[in-house]
């Protein structure tokens, strides 16, 4: 998700389009700020465990609910754990959730949307019906039901594998949380991406250069990957940057409802929901994770808007 992938020029397209976009993006201060926040987030998520001043699990009952100070910049929580360390570790959770959910959703959306838009006909009808059906499910409901029904059997199965193999990977409960809960979230968030890609493909499909390519006898697959998809990339990138932000908010929403990452693993969501219980007494316990979450979400949105303006300089046409 670095900017590297964004500016990789697609074949047969003038490089200038992407470098122009990059130049325009750099002129947008808000977008640059968003990009900077994103970079910090990635850095913290990657190197978090080496950056934290304290262990995020170590409790100190003599230092419960301390207000922010020099030794604990964000204070301590109800078990005397350092909130800054937990927020930093939570960045890893947040980032993993956002990337995983968005990546799976985009993958499904792009493939189905492109096929539907490009081939049309009965294929399109069926896919659009599936999209409608998926969109008609109350999201929260589905995630909670999936979580309630599948998590335990999978946890037990993983535990059984661990006892057989002693491979610590099977003991990583985060894997279960992410793959299952947020994977299921991805399975219901793909339709907007599919629709977007389908619409783009529909509008590009009949452009002269695509018609020309077809006349030259190029296969559908080549036309699709070389000409159609690169053109749909702009709006998609904008949608992705917004999707990353809302995935993080979704994670915290699920934690508020009591599903999501299990304690004591910190996530911004479960820190917010813990903070909400005591925030009239210890506001820092709510403010620290909520502010960080808000900043990151805002950053993603500014970046999205900047990308939108940069990729479609005269509006979307």
């Amino acid at each position: 998700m670095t900017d590297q992938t964004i500016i990789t020029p697609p074949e047969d397209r003038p490089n200038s389009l992407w470098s122009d976009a990059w130049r325009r993006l750099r002129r947008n201060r808000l977008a640059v700020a968003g990009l900077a926040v994103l970079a910090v987030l990635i850095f913290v998520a990657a190197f978090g465990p080496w950056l934290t001043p304290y262990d995020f699990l170590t409790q100190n009952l003599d230092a419960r609910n301390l207000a922010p100070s020099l030794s604990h910049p964000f204070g301590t929580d109800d078990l005397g754990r350092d909130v800054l360390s937990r927020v930093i570790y939570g960045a890893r959770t947040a980032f993993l959730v956002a990337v995983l959910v968005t990546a799976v959703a985009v993958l499904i959306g792009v493939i189905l949307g492109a096929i539907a838009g490009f081939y049309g006909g009965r294929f399109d009808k069926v896919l659009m019906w599936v999209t409608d059906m998926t969109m008609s499910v109350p999201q929260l409901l589905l995630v909670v039901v999936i979580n309630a029904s599948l998590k335990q059997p999978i946890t037990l199965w993983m535990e059984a594998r661990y006892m057989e193999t002693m491979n610590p990977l099977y003991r990583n409960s985060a894997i279960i949380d992410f793959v299952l809960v947020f994977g299921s979230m991805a399975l219901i968030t793909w339709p907007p991406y599919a629709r977007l890609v389908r619409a783009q493909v529909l509008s590009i499909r009949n452009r002269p250069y695509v018609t020309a390519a077809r006349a030259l006898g190029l296969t559908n697959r080549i036309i699709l990957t070389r000409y159609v998809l690169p053109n749909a990339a702009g709006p998609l990138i904008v949608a992705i940057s917004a999707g990353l932000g809302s995935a993080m908010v979704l994670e915290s929403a699920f934690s508020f409802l009591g599903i999501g990452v299990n304690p004591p693993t910190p996530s911004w969501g479960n820190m917010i929901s813990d903070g909400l219980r005591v925030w009239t007494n210890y506001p820092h316990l709510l403010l620290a994770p909520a502010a960080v979450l808000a900043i990151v979400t805002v950053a993603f949105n500014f970046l999205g808007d900047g990308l939108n303006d940069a990729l479609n300089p005269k509006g979307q046409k």
Partner: protein
Amino acid sequence: MIAYILRRLLLWIPSVILVMLGVYALAFYGAGDPIKLIFLRAPGDVAYDPVKIEAIREQAGLNQPFLVQFGNYLWNLVQGNFGNSLFSGRSVWAMISAAAPVSFMLGLMAMVVTALVAIPLGMVAGMHQNSRLDYSILGTAVTLWAIPPYVAGPLLMVLLLAVLPSGSVPYGWGGVFSVKIILPLIVLSFQPIALIIRQTRAAVIDVMTEDYVRTARAKGVPERVVALRHILRPVLTPVVTQLGLIMITIVNGAIFVELVFGLPGLGRLTVQALINSDYPVILAVTLIGSFLVMASNLLVDLLYPLLDPRATDPKAART
């Protein structure tokens, strides 16, 4: 037109049955046994009695094979019987018909507030692209988007309590015309407003480059007239197509708002049902939620040709 609506309804029925089958299957094969949950949550001095559990299970018809249970459920549903809550024993229909008006009124009001606030602001921002005004509107919108309702709700409520210590607490449901609705409405509208401001702004920027707008402006037509006559209508089209998305945002947001402000609506009912694995209620809520989304999509498709005379095929609306 009517044939088209009927066809859409017919297409919706198999999909909602599929979804409900999925929910039922998840409940049946994986989720916590609701009957046992009732006992597990009871304090330790309540005897854990397998005989009693089986008796309740049999009474609720939960001991039959999966497809029989699901078939029975559908058959009852066709007859208009939503069954009884496993947890409270109350009729699901009674619970829903009490809760739904609250949510509908709240959602509808949020829609109205969103439209009245967001579309003008979005147009102002779009018509003054990259100005300071644009940035401040956009910045506010993005910040509103970033504050989840379950954080905004308690904060606003307790701040208000601090200001009005002896005043009426803005908690609970007093109807659409009660002052109690103001706070939930504000919190619920935050995210849709942010969404629509950005949609409108983008659409305005798009339209501003059109020849007829440029011509109108060049001819010296006043800005207000340009905005109302030339920009508003084409801008409404893409915004209206987002109705379904706004609907989803409001429905999801309502769950938290209802929880935070103690409103006896569908969202609170849903969360309670999920916590209790109360499947008759969950299925009924799924059905209603699915119908809502379908209906709003249908509405969009029907509105689309009215707003954009160029589109003749209603199906093209949601591309």
